[in-house]
């Protein structure tokens, strides 16, 4: 027989938010990886044709007229680690009870999220493709839109952590650490999306 346990004492904090965030990040990473796998499957299955000079085999995946703005995509790639750095700065400050720097770092990470959203909109605007124009376009919007939603989630996390910090929750180290972990996840996930969708296309 399993021995029944007595009522528990007041629960000691055991990094509940950090652990939950880590699991949620793993879960969200599977979401992105699953979508990338689907992208690769469709790209591999795209029809091929000979080039006009007959020397090359061309895969009809990305339409000829579509150009991915690499500058904006690369800027996004660089922006994400900066966001993670700011989040880590917030974590560093929180451990040292440095409230002003913690709040400042969280606010900057929110603004960096905003910059990423801006860059993504710039990518959409410069590409000027319709969602229903073809296979590539539909899947491009689906995968980058999902990534954008995850970034918006990161911004919301930054905002909540920022207001808690400004509100005087000096013992909020767990939340700030979890926030940093989420930004590391965003950086890694976008690196994968950038390489497969923006570089390999």
């Amino acid at each position, binding site marked *: 027989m399993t021995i029944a346990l007595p009522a528990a004492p007041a629960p000691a904090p055991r990094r509940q938010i950090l652990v939950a965030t880590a*699991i949620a990040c793993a879960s969200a990473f599977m979401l992105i990886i699953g979508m990338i796998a689907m992208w690769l499957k469709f790209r591999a299955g795209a029809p091929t044709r000979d080039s006009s000079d007959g020397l090359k085999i061309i895969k009809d995946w990305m339409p000829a007229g579509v150009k991915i703005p690499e500058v904006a995509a690369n800027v996004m790639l660089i922006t994400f680690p900066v966001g993670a750095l700011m989040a880590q700065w917030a974590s560093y400050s929180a451990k040292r009870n440095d409230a002003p720097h913690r709040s400042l770092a969280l606010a900057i990470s929110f603004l960096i999220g905003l910059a990423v959203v801006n860059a993504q909109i710039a990518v959409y605007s410069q590409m000027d493709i319709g969602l229903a124009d073809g296979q590539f376009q539909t899947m491009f919007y689906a995968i980058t839109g999902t990534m954008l939603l995850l970034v918006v989630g990161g911004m919301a996390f930054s905002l909540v952590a920022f207001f808690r910090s400004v509100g005087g929750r000096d013992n909020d180290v767990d939340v700030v650490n979890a926030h940093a972990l989420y930004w590391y996840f965003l950086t890694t996930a976008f690196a994968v999306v950038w390489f497969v969708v923006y570089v390999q296309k």
Partner: protein
Amino acid sequence: MTNIDTHVGATTHAQGAGSAFVVSIGQWITSSDHKKIGRLFVGTSLLSAVLAAVLGLLFGLERISPAHMEIFHGDATPQMFALYQFALVFGVLAPLFVGIAIAVVPTQLGARAIAFPRLAQFGFWAWLFGALMVDVSIIGNGGPGGGATDLVDLYLLGVALAAVGLLAGSLSIATSVLTARAPGMTLDRIPAFSWSALIGSIATLLSLPVMIGTIIYLYVDHTHAQLVFGGNKGINSFLGWSLSQPMTFVFVIMALGVLAEVAPVTARTEQPLRPVVLAGIGIISTAVLGAATQSAHILDWAGTNSDKVKSTLLHSLFNGLPLLGMLIVVLVSLLCLKVGTPRVTAPFALSLLGALMIIVGVLGNGLYNLKAASLDGTVFSEGVVLYLVYGGLLSALGALSHWAPLLWGRAIDNTKLLGLALIGLLGTILASFPLYIAGFADQPANTVMGFDYDGPVALWNVLAGLGHALIVLTVVGFVALLIDAVRNGASVSQEASA
């Protein structure tokens, strides 16, 4: 907290029975008590089990005479099959164990509450509304292959929302096991069911997002372009894996945990090979590899020796490893009976029979993926799903009867439950095994008309229909016994089954 509860009770008493009922409903809807959330999951899943079994019964009846009987119109049949499969996997199997884990795991850990109770509560409502959206969309001709475009979108959103709900519940469970254990309770000391809840939750958290990613693609395509994934007709070919094997293996991990938990109690001894049981449960989680890669590798001995070895290895990895884990858990659990002084208890009978049915399902899946057997596209696959789902259902009923004193403060009559266990076993075998045989006779899957083969077509389908009817009887009988125990039974110490 106690003061508030007392105050509410006193107020409702003064206002009369009607408002007390409303307050009670309000408390259930908004409760963050893990036992209430768990019981909501369990109750709704059992209702869904009845719905699924009734659909199975109707399909069985219609297949008796494929040429003459017409319960469902031709166009509606694929959609009703989609509803049937959704109800079995996402209406019964997955939420039933999530609900049991939410209700039981915190008490096993010595925790005051589940981690993030509001998240668990959100999980229940998201899952419920997602399931309802799926039901509404299919009834309105919006399921896979349906003609109502807006309702097809609703179907996709419903499946995604139900999955999000299950993910939320799983996140609460996994975080609880990892962070809310009583002081001194290390991970290797947690009860076997909590271990299986951790493993099952993480496996769910790693596999369901892949399905959600597919739904995002399908939804974006269906609402705007309808040129990548074949519109409404293509939904099943891209999403069908999530209602099939090895995805279902992920959801039965906790069923084996129930057996591992109940067996030592029945044998009145400690599990002598506890680490081996925990390792066995861990090995079952390799099913997540197949679920996340959407692969059920076919064993094909054609080609070169290298091809044969590759095919055998992949088949063993995706089908054999989960089976190995299940066999380890069952055999080591049975070892307890030899070591201890066992008595016949209904929870043990239900959980053991459930686990055995699941193993028959997994073995069937191994056979289904054997190319030489030529079972692809036959009802054999439906038989596999039914073995897994109804086996899981039996295990869940075993868990509920084992923890009834904890959840309801009452014990369910052991003798009557043993009778129900036998009916449930018979129902599971009758609902599934005839489809195995019909599969070998090439009866096509997901259709009720336009087929014929040499053999007693009517017999196999009558038996299958009868099996579903017995499952309905089992679930209804269990609920009746539970209600009887709650109303008339003597109060039992909660510690008896904690």
